[in-house]
């Protein structure tokens, strides 16, 4: 099992100056906190009309660390010939693709996203959806990208029986609304990063590991927007066995990735 962060980024953020945005910094943080591998997106793509050039830039940005950083390109299913971007991701060996329907002004479970879901599922490639990049209260006034809705996740999961979704930055209520709104078989194809789920004293994460099941969660940090330390502190505040901790740090991701 390799400790893997599924929610890391490189590149500048459109809405504020980041103090760190490079692959070098990301690697230093990973080394510091014991993360071996990261699935990496490219932050500027969030607002780019065409993700293809940004996807190429992502590969360049992380090229020095092929054993540690895996590029997760973006696919915009509202664009002409978006299938080419999906194929490029497959050919490049991407572990998943990202989509930001809230920033494309697309219905997150509308026809474009459903076609993408079907194509990715047919190719055995998971899709990563992000509930929110930043807390609603702190966003730039011009950042009007909508949060992902729990209903969209439920409907996408039901739209294709082979689709695997990884949803990042969800909180307790979001996870519960989706999980208990799906059949157990549907939920098996869904993975959550736990970075936005509260630890003590409310102990939402401990509760969800019991009610939803430990197998459904994996490590994501949100670097370089967010510090990696909190996700790991959440684990240190849980009373779980080392074997369960290993699942959360990468074991569950490997099992879920092998579903295809």
């Amino acid at each position, binding site marked *: 099992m390799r400790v893997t962060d599924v929610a890391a980024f490189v590149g500048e953020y459109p809405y*504020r*100056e*980041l*103090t*760190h945005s490079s692959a070098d910094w990301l690697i230093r943080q990973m080394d*510091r906190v014991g993360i071996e591998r990261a699935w990496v997106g490219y932050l500027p793509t969030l607002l780019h009309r065409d993700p293809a050039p940004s996807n190429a830039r992502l590969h360049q940005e992380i090229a020095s660390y092929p054993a540690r950083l895996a590029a997760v390109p973006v696919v915009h299913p509202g664009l002409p010939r978006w299938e080419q971007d999906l194929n490029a991701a497959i050919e490049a060996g991407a572990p998943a693709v990202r989509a930001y329907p809230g920033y494309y002004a697309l219905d997150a479970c509308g026809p474009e996203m459903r076609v993408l879901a079907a194509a990715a599922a047919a190719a055995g490639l998971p899709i990563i959806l992000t509930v929110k990049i930043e*807390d609603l*209260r*702190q966003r730039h*006034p011009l950042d009007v990208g909508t949060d992902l809705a729990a209903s969209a996740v439920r409907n996408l999961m039901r739209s294709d029986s082979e689709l695997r979704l990884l949803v990042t930055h969800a909180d307790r209520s979001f996870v519960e609304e989706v999980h208990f709104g799906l059949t157990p078989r549907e939920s098996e194809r869904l993975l959550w990063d736990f970075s936005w789920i*509260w*630890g*003590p*004293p*409310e*102990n939402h*994460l401990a509760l969800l590991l019991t009610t939803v099941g430990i197998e459904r969660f994996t490590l994501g940090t*949100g*670097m*370089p*927007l*967010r*510090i*990696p*330390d*909190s*996700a*790991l*502190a*959440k684990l*240190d*505040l849980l009373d779980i066995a080392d074997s369960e901790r290993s699942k959360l740090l990468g074991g569950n991701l490997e099992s879920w990735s092998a579903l295809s």
Partner: protein
Amino acid sequence: MLIDVHAHFFTEFSGRSDWQTLNSARLQAGARIGITVHVASILGSWGARSPVYFPSPDDVARANDALIELMQDHPEIRGYCVVNPNFIEHAMSEIARRIDQGMIGIKLAASRRADDFLLDPIARLAGQRSVPILHHVWHHRRRDWPGQEASDAMELAHLAERHPETRFILAHLGGGGDWAHSLRVVRETPNVWIDLSGSGIDVDMLDRAFDLLGASRLLWGSDITMDTAWGKLRYLEASGATPAELDLIRCGNARQVFPGGAFQ
């Protein structure tokens, strides 16, 4: 020593059947993190009988009573006296009484805008009794939000500038809103310290707070997410801060902000 300057507890009147579990969870997590002192408040009835941010005088008094009991049962707990400034006579008498009973600070949440002159007697009394005011802040509040009359850093700064002899703590830099706005404000207001609590864990929030204000203006705290607080402490420990700077954030600044002997 590690002092959490922004903690909360619950009571049997808080409208939550799990109130004892929550209190125990805070103390247990605190022990694991290494928290030496929890400086805490109870926000009235937490909405059960009057609104969280507009607590009635009865709920305020009952909450402060409960916190005094917790302080007696747990030597690692210190207390902020919660008041609603709209009931100013009650607030003033409550503050005087609770400080006499051992509380070491005043908690003002969002019952009245921070720059309202109604708060002046409270700020004056805090200065006279040498206790800080922890003030709830919505970072760069662009409009009113339901359920609270929240203040932002500029409004708190106006109060602080009128009372330079009083020490203020700007609550939860990670608690929501545009933290960069608050940092710009308090840079020029030396009697305001920043508490780092809240669920927000932005890398640049911590980096900029440290760069703009320096370690001497930062206080460590958790509010309602102790996991994020521990994460921020770990990040700061690895960020290149000197041991002396880390000691200021962990406890040294709190020793300066709170009354002498508060943490002995």
